[in-house]
């Protein structure tokens, strides 16, 4: 099914430009053409399909579903809903306040906020299509666990005092809204709007990531990674996680880099750790969270994720070796 994209890349690289697709610039260009075509087609189709399905899943609804549950249900529900519910990072602050206001514990709220950007169904489907479903399944499973663990640690440390004071004072009104806005036509409009909005927002990141993937693919010899990023180098995983923090990416955008690194023989744990770090921790996201979290909590939160991602990396490098 995806062969058509390979054929397209063959055509452009070999037939039109007469390059060698096995090495150097030809290989980089082949990777770039194939991935740009494949990922943008996939991205548009998947965002549209998901938009049709999740039309009615809003953060307000998630809040109702999680609120008032006991912890055994609240944590899995939080990471599960976090994984499937879309929200733009500009809604992080109202979402955080809304959850706490509904007396959802801080740990559960943070679990939702970790899982939401990290596991995003669009990225997971693209990861499955480009790299393989096993890696995608691993990514989802460990992502859910990391979300729960991060939430539980924050709960046990009793960090509520590091939430900005004004957050506790806000009283929310009852949302009585928009339930009438249903119907097939609306659903299609919503799904199409999602395609325009999401693709419009992340295309540049995806393009840059494909460019990085292409350069890795064409110009960096596999021996380089075999020397520096092999499973026996204990620093490879933490360095991968650190490298992912400043990278403001989107989980979907990380896929081409993941693809290129795996093809060069970088161990799967190291690559998963990098992808989680790119998706879940970023500087702009931290600046937004700073509005509701005081610095100690923000630092602890980032620290927990750093340790968790590094752990995931070591674990899979060990298990899959």
């Amino acid at each position, binding site marked *: 099914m995806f062969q058509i994209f390979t054929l397209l890349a063959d055509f452009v690289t070999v037939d039109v430009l007469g390059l060698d697709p096995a090495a150097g610039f030809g290989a980089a260009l082949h990777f770039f053409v194939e991935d740009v075509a494949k990922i943008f087609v996939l991205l548009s189709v998947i965002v549209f399909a998901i938009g049709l399905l999740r039309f009615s899943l*809003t*953060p*307000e609804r998630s*809040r109702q579903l999680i609120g008032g549950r006991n912890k055994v249900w609240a944590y899995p529900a939080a990471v599960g809903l976090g994984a499937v519910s879309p*929200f*733009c990072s*500009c*809604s992080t*602050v*109202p*979402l955080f*306040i*809304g959850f706490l*206001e509904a007396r959802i514990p801080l740990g559960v709220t943070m679990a939702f906020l970790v899982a939401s950007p990290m596991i995003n169904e669009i990225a997971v489907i693209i990861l499955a299509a480009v790299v393989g479903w096993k890696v995608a399944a691993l990514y989802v499973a460990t992502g859910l666990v990391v979300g729960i663990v991060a939430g539980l640690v924050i709960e046990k440390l009793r960090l509520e005092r590091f939430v900005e004071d*004004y957050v506790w*004072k*806000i*009283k*929310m*009104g*009852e*949302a*009585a*809204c*928009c339930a009438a*806005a249903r119907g097939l036509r609306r659903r299609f*409009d*919503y799904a199409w*709007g999602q395609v325009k*909005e999401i693709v419009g927002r992340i295309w540049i990141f995806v393009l840059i990531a494909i460019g990085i993937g292409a350069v890795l693919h064409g110009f960096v010899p596999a021996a380089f990674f075999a020397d520096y990023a092999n499973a026996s180098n204990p620093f490879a995983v933490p360095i991968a996680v650190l490298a992912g923090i400043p990278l403001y990416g989107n989980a979907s955008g990380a896929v081409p880099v993941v693809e290129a690194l795996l093809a060069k023989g970088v161990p799967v744990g190291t690559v998963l750790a990098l992808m989680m770090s790119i998706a879940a921790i970023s500087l702009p996201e931290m600046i937004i969270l700073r509005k509701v979290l005081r610095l100690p909590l923000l630092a602890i939160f980032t620290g927990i994720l750093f340790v968790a991602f590094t752990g995931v990396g070591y674990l899979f490098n060990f298990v899959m070796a």
Partner: protein
Amino acid sequence: MKTIKVLGSGCKKCRTVAEAIETKIAAAGADAQVVKVTDTAEIMGYGVMSTPAVVVDGKLVHSGSVPGAADIEGWLKS
């Protein structure tokens, strides 16, 4: 006169919504004004967690996405 509030912390989508509504008001010659609300406490006061959201004369009519042109025309008429 109708007061239409656009709720949102100042992200790009919220500006898009405010501009779209202002354009419709001008086109329809409607008797309405647009007010942007960026204060988190006030936004949450309407029970809104996902922005941009729209409030017409104190009543929440939309939240979580950029509304379509038909929706905006509907609010101006009713």
